[in-house]
């Protein structure tokens, strides 16, 4: 075991989740505050979201957008398909997905931050989309039936999940055979020391 691992206590999952929840509650309530990541419509443009996708999406949902990629660039969501949006935040991707799959399709957005869930539900109501619902839950224990989904999308969330193996296994559980994974996330180009992985402020700040 290296020196730096011994110096740091094990990552406290509960504290990490609480810190992430606080951070994203702020993105929900004060999206223009200015964070260490871009947000809102300028971010959507940077990530190559088309204006057509954003048509009819309520502004409160767009302004709290904090993704890192573009799940929709990875493959078409087809009418009638069932989609899970992992870490749905203020709902922008779930609502875009709901438009794409149409009234015969279904979307379930899952998030662990109540402030984001509230914002997403209100946005769905204002958009008049009845084929989408938002559920509280964790990536490692999705509140979705086995094999329910055709596609799991996610954007800027898996990097925040402490147990990525558990999350990926859970995604596999909710996907049917041949189900697709379309994810926007982040990649690090340099090795992250074990000590850094255990610092909550480096996960969130």
């Amino acid at each position, binding site marked *: 075991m290296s020196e730096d691992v011994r110096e740091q206590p094990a990552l406290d999952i509960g504290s990490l989740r609480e810190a992430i929840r606080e951070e994203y509650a702020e993105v929900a309530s004060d999206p223009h505050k*200015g*964070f*260490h*990541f*871009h947000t809102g419509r300028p*971010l959507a443009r*940077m*990530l190559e979201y088309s204006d057509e996708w954003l048509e009819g999406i309520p502004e409160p949902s767009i302004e709290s957008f904090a993704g*890192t*990629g*573009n*799940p929709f*660039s*990875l*493959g078409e969501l087809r009418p009638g398909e069932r989609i899970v949006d992992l870490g749905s935040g203020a709902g922008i991707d779930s609502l875009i997905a709901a438009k794409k799959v149409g009234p015969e399709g279904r979307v379930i957005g899952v998030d662990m931050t109540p402030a984001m869930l509230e914002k997403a539900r209100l946005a769905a109501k204002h958009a008049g989309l009845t084929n989408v619902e938002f559920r509280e839950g964790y990536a490692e224990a999705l509140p979705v039936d086995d094999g329910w989904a055709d596609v799991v999308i996610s954007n*800027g969330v*898996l*990097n*925040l999940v402490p147990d*990525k*193996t558990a999350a*990926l*296994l859970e*995604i*596999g559980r909710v*996907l*049917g*055979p*041949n*189900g*697709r*994974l*379309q*994810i*926007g*996330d*982040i*990649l*690090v*180009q*340099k*090795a*992250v020391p074990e000590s*850094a*992985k255990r610092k909550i*402020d*480096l*996960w*969130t*700040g």
Partner: protein
Amino acid sequence: MATVVAAGFVDFEITWRKDVFGGAPQAGSAENFGTLGINFRARKTTDEEELAAALAAWSCEISNGTGEDGEREYDPHLYRP
């Protein structure tokens, strides 16, 4: 990639990468690690047979040293910068 394949997915592919944090209102404490936004996709295997074949192929790639491209591709311990 290892985490994705081990979880039962195939056809893993990173299709896009970009500096999506540059110019953000606040500096991130993890900037030194060279974080990039990425898009990646994969497909759940159809059945156990396809999964076994994928795992075997992946094991061969690792043992032949062909599974690395110098970057930390989807490091299972990534954190948000």
